[in-house]
């Protein structure tokens, strides 16, 4: 049984649905990447999983349990974490306080997890007393991921982690994501840098107009001439 499975998910913000039947299934060992043109419903899919918009049809099963339309404070303790694309750090709070907020739902001692996050992103340890708002774009992205990892998720949802970063940092962030995945956290992310992201994806999903157009492993999708022509710019 996959860690998370979306079956024919239909949903939106009340008006016409934005998602018209999305199917996604990934294991905890997977890095899943959702690509597609603007307005295809990529970010909306992540928000639907995280209960931030209404799912009207279909189901989302996570760890054997239906979770559609549950709110984040119920989902985080179940092992789901979300890194939004923008405004994903508490700018007025220190790096360490940002991480602490990620552990809000935990009642046990979260210091070992914080230690683990600092080992994964050593630069955060150096800057732990600094307000997150003073950090560079790449470092903020690490704070955001670190915050999401503090709840010890089984699955991490990332909304365009490379958005707004310089090419050098894009590669670095992707390397960090692979590292997080190797540490046993399933990844489901949305990416604009489709070719680069699919290159290390074990599951790739090409969405258009709110439904799946192509599904396969990352390399399969890159090799598919039709995908390449319509979605990867030739």
């Amino acid at each position, binding site marked *: 049984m996959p860690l998370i499975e979306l079956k024919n998910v239909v949903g939106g913000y009340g008006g016409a649905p934005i998602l018209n039947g999305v199917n996604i299934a990934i294991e905890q060992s997977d890095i899943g990447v959702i690509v597609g043109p603007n307005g295809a419903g990529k970010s909306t899919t992540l928000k639907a999983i995280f209960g*931030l918009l209404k799912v009207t049809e279909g189901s989302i099963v996570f760890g054997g349990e239906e979770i559609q339309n549950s*709110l*984040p404070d119920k989902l985080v303790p179940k092992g789901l974490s979300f890194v*939004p694309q923008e405004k994903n750090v508490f700018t007025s*709070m220190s790096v360490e*306080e940002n991480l*602490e*907020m990620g552990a809000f739902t935990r009642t046990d001692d979260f210091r070992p997890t914080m230690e683990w996050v600092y080992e994964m992103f050593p630069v955060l340890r150096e800057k732990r007393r600094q307000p997150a708002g003073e950090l560079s774009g790449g470092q903020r992205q690490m704070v955001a991921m670190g915050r999401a990892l503090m*709840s010890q998720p089984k699955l991490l949802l990332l909304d365009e982690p490379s958005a707004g970063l310089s090419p050098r940092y894009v590669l670095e962030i992707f390397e960090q994501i692979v590292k997080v995945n190797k540490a046993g956290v399933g990844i489901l992310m949305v990416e604009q840098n489709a070719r680069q992201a699919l290159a290390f994806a074990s599951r790739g999903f090409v969405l258009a107009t709110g439904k799946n157009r192509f599904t396969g492993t990352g390399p399969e999708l890159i090799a598919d001439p039709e995908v390449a022509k319509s979605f990867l710019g030739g």
Partner: protein
Amino acid sequence: MNELIFFFNNVIVAGVVLGSIYAVGAIGVTLIFGILRFAHFAHGDMMTMGAFIAFLLMLAFQAMGISVPFLPTGFLVLPIAMVITAIIALGLDKGFYAPLRRRGARPVTLLIASIGVTLIIQGLIRLFFGSGTWNFFETEPKQLIRIPVPLEGVTRTINFTQPQLLMVICTVVAVLALHFFLTRSRLGKAMRAMADNADLAQVSGINTKLVVRVTWIIAGSLAAMAGTMLALDVQLKPDLAFNIVLPIFAAAIVGGLGQSYGAIAGGFLIGFAETAAIFNWSVLLRPISGALPFEVPATLAVVPTEYKLTVAFVILVVVLLWRPTGIFKGAQT
């Protein structure tokens, strides 16, 4: 020297007292704005309500003969009044604001609703107490503390009342408690997180409903404290704090909306500015009148006492021109 002590008593002492009241009131306004993003206009009336609750408790304590030496009963009952007002604040949120938030009401709708709450609270108070004034020190003496200044030729003493001293101590304790709550406790940090970025706080799994409840508890109890302090310093009447809700908002805005430390700074800034503006500066000029090229008028104040309120607005305008989001960088709607 005597003139300087007169200045100290009328500007510094009075400014500290007024600043404390404004600061404690403004913290509540700024916290509610930071978490719920609306201007809680009924905050002044929550203060008045807290003061009346304290007054009733004081009468009950006196009737039962409960008292502590050297401590005015008004201060003795203050913690209980704070708890009761916090519970009422939670009820106000549940009854009036929470249903509107659930329907996605805009901040201006909540502001209008809070004006409605203002009218309800004031109406209820007038219904039970009439529109007259009441005094916390009807049966107890208000002790005056005089500190002589050991300098030659000085006849004036530094004067303040015992309640004034106690309310400054209460303010310091409240501010320190709030500081440790916001910087050390998990829930306090979650409050700052929600004021910083409410969407991200929700996504992080922070129980935002709990944070909202804690906000009302803190705002309600501080309102009771500020209102009771004001009533202890002057007297109790149904529009006690309604009259100072504008300077309190000015203090919160000057400090940067959503910034607790800004509200404290703004409260004291406006408190001192008001007392300095109504001070008769002729008193200080008279001893050096011989050296001045003009004649010292009998009264020389920036504004007459009855126009005290304008001071808050002048400061508000000047600060916002200089820093549009307040002294500490505040939130915007």
